[in-house]
């Protein structure tokens, strides 16, 4: 069976994971290892008057306790946000200072004020409990509304009114005019619920300082170890880049939350130097809820105008985005360039205006979580379309269909330029698979059993493959968003691919090897993928935003091009033919129309012995490439969800879920479908189960799996995942990316289905049985 592009090859990495031989950060133990625990603020907003460590310092096993004043005194820099956003009035965003260990004030429950180092984990934790911090409690703003109230406490001195920025995109006047002249305007208030990403592996770090070499090593649960090293060096001044090695070994899921460089990694590195010990810290689950960046948390008011035929004439959006207590690494870009730029959805919308108010609150920092801005955009657009169809008395599929973009490239009013797609094709495929036409009969059958049945659709689009470096630079990004790769062919013909992408569940060891197998006809077992270590791979921007395919693999393709060119030249020389007569297939360099060929190891050996090379050719066979994308990519598709609701209990069951996606070229359909399954599950989680809740005084009420409803097996149906692809025109493999689609397209499909079942459109995520029951009864009472 082919192992090349398009083959559902089983994963190479599975053996170690199914036998318990994976190597995650917490599995690693260093010589001379000590353990860290953090002293965390129990108050959401408090002044730190004094930290008394005297009782803790004399406890068994305690090595050291350090605070924020010592940390900043040693020149460790504040944590930064890497994307500069400019407000409407031209002013820069108001980034409040964020020290890895809080000095004067704590701003959320969990904000660390000190690090305790001890011989064992239990001793470190016990001592952390014994550190006596004198807090002066301050008034708390735990929600957007509280932070914007007239009497709100000031969370950061430099952010008046707790405003991070007041940003806009699009044409306000033209959109207002279009809405004023519209035949129909649909208006909605939409809440996008706050989520915790919850990769199953909690964050962990082991920092080691080598005094003799003046060198640091950090093992960490990172989606992008090179970015971690860059930020730790350039901004936090922990160590210069050449004196800091960052290794992200097996990482147990990320979903965005492991992009960021958190206070704990910074403090552990610094503490390893202070104590001359390896310092290890592993989060527990409640600590993860209290410190891992959260996602979503938007409040939006939107108006969408239609002409008499149902064509959209304008879309005006006003969103308030909760940033939490500090600006995390990519936080500023999420509700702006990753959200508002997708508000055209899959539709021709001539006029769009969006304004976004970024707001500080006394909660965990909020940043990119699977989809990052695009789920919020997709939810808004697709809830608006469904609601408009109901108000206009039109079939929701038909309303979408008359508004679909059909010509490409398509320039939206909000920056994005879509390269390809067949929106109606995906919708028709999904409708057929879901038996859309047979829904009325199924609804009647449910009704006969006393159940309410509903069907809902979403036609999402998203932007992946972030992104052309110059373009994002012009929009405020502090980094370029290219990717690097190096292809090394060894003398025996085996191949190593070094990549700046990072696999934490995506299966790169298999799919990246498939790209090489496709090119040369070598078996994937002779290809090793090397990633996750800054000493091995020169540089890379890591894995997030579904970029490993469209950007990471494109870099590999570029490097393969160079290797192939050298092989052709060498083979032509050795076989005494012209390069044009050489074909590479089945792991051989063959001469067209003859039986002359070179075996793969013969090519490798010839390159490395260097005994007989063409004039001017260097020995060896190793090439590197940096790939900078030409454009974002635009995965899109149609999801259809069908639900049955029990009106007696409000319990909702998903009875079928169909996804038709356009991901462009697919390397391994088995892995791609797995990505979609997981994304849908997280989307169902957002729609029906998950929500981070805070009390008014900023205590997190949902900080364990006893309280935060993670989707479990019996919450979910089987999914039908289909492909209807066009080819992306802006990267060499034609890939669009598949990692986030499920999480982006699912919530609106689920809520459109449930609201159609219960006949009440006023329903917010997550749709707990209590909420659904109340909505059913509110609709019944209103009808009476």
């Amino acid at each position, binding site marked *: 069976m082919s192992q090349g592009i398009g083959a559902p090859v089983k994963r190479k990495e599975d053996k170690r994971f*199914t036998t*318990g031989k994976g190597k995650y950060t917490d599995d690693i133990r260093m010589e001379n290892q000590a353990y860290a625990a953090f002293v965390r603020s129990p108050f959401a907003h408090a002044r730190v008057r004094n930290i008394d460590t005297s009782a803790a310092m004399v406890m068994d096993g305690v090595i050291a306790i350090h605070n924020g004043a010592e940390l900043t005194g040693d020149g460790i820099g504040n944590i930064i946000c890497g994307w500069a956003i400019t407000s409407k009035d031209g002013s820069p965003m108001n980034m409040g200072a964020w020290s890895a260990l809080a000095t004067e004030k704590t701003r959320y429950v969990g904000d660390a004020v000190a690090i305790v180092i001890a011989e064992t984990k239990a001793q470190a934790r016990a001592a952390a409990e014994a550190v006596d911090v004198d807090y002066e409690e301050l008034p708390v703003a735990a929600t957007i509304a509280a932070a914007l109230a007239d009497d709100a406490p000031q969370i950061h001195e430099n952010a008046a009114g707790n405003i991070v920025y007041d940003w806009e995109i699009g044409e306000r006047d033209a959109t207002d005019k279009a809405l004023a002249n519209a035949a129909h305007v649909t208006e909605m208030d939409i809440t996008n619920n706050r989520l915790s990403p919850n*990769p*199953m592996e909690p964050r962990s770090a082991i920092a080691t300082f080598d005094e003799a070499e003046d060198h640091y090593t950090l093992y960490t649960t990172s989606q992008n170890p090179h970015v971690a090293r860059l930020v730790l060096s350039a901004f936090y001044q922990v160590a210069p880049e050449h004196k800091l090695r960052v290794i992200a070994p097996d990482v147990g899921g990320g979903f965005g939350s492991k992009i960021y460089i958190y206070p704990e990694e910074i403090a552990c590195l610094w503490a390893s130097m202070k104590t001359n010990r390896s310092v290890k810290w592993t989060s527990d689950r409640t600590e993860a809820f209290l410190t891992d960046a959260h996602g979503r948390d938007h409040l939006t008011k939107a108006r969408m105008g239609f002409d008499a035929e149902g064509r959209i004439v304008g879309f005006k959006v006003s969103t308030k985005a909760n940033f939490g207590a500090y600006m995390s690494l990519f936080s500023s870009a999420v509700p702006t360039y990753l959200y508002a730029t997708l508000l055209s959805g899959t539709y021709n919308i001539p006029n769009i205006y969006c304004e976004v108010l970024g707001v500080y609150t006394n909660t965990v920092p909020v940043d990119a979580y699977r989809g990052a801005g695009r789920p919020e955009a997709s939810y808004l657009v697709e809830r608006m379309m469904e609601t408009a169809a109901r108000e206009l008395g039109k079939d929701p599929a038909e309303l979408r269909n008359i508004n679909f973009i059909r010509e490409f490239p398509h320039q939206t009013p909000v920056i994005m330029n879509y390269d390809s797609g067949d929106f109606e094709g995906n919708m028709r495929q999904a409708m057929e698979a879901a038996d859309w036409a047979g829904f009325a009969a199924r609804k009647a059958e449910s009704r006969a059993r006393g159940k309410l049945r509903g069907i809902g659709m979403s036609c999402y689009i998203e932007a992946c493959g972030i992104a052309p470096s110059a373009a994002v630079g012009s929009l405020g990004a502090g980094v370029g968003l290219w990717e690097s790769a190096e292809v090394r062919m060894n003398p025996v013909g085996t191949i190593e691919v070094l990549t700046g992408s990072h696999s934490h569940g995506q299966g790169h060891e298999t799919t990246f090897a498939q790209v090489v197998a496709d090119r040369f006809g070598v078996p994937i077992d002779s290809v090793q993928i090397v990633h996750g270590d800054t000493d091995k791979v020169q540089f890379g921007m890591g894995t997030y935003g579904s970029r490993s395919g469209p950007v990471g693999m494109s870099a590999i393709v570029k490097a393969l091009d160079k290797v192939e060119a050298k092989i052709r030249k060498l083979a032509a020389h050795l076989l005494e033919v012209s390069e044009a007569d050489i074909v590479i297939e089945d792991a051989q360099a063959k001469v067209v129309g003859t039986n002359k060929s070179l075996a793969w190891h013969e090519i490798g050996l010839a390159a490395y012995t260097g005994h007989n090379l063409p004039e001017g050719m260097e020995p060896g066979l190793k090439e590197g490439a940096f790939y900078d994308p030409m454009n974002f990519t635009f995965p899109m598709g149609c999801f259809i969800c069908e639900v049955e609701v029990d009106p007696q209990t409000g319990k909702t069951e998903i009875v079928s879920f169909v996804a038709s996606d356009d991901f462009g070229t697919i390397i391994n359909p088995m892995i791609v479908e797995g990505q979609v399954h*997981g994304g849908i599950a997280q989307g169902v989680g957002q729609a029906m189960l998950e929500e981070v809740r805070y009390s008014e005084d900023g205590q997190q009420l949902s900080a364990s799996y006893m309280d935060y409803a993670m*989707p479990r097996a019996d919450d979910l149906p089987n999914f039908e995942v289909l492909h209807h692809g066009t080819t992306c025109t802006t990267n060499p493999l034609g890939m669009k990316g598949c990692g986030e689609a499920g999480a982006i397209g699912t919530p609106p499909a689920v809520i459109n289905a449930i609201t159609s079942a219960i006949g009440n459109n006023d329903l917010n995520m997550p749709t707990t049985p209590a909420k659904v029951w109340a909505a059913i009864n509110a609709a019944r009472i209103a009808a009476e």
Partner: protein
Amino acid sequence: MSEIKMTVNGKPVRGDVKDNTLLVEFIREHLRLTGTHVGCDTSQCGACVVHVNGKAIKSCTMLAASADGAEVTTIEGVANGDLHPMQKAFNDNHGLQCGFCTPGMIMSGIDMVQRYKSAGKTLDEAAIRHELEGNICRCTGYHNIVKSIAQAAGEM
């Protein structure tokens, strides 16, 4: 401190542990068998499932001292030369992504197949989903985990 002795993956082991040492801590930190994972601390996620005297238990919820004298099997002890049919089924059906929950899923999967077989009950899809109540996966949406366990149930 207590001295404990048990058989882990067929080998006798002993250790001196504090009375509050959890079984998962003994397995991971004393025996250095790191395939058994800790994902939640509240007995919800099931990443720490091992078999004690033939039953699936969450090793974050049992004291090491309580397992004194027990027969313990961890993910490292499941394969007998070749992969166990459950391990193979997870590979065949793409039943894992990041791999962190996988050891617990496999240990729970083996346990549920054995229980249903010995009770003469059919382990259908609904039963598998119900039985997985104590194992959380964030990557796969369970679709392929259910397929994996169903395949292994036919082969075990």
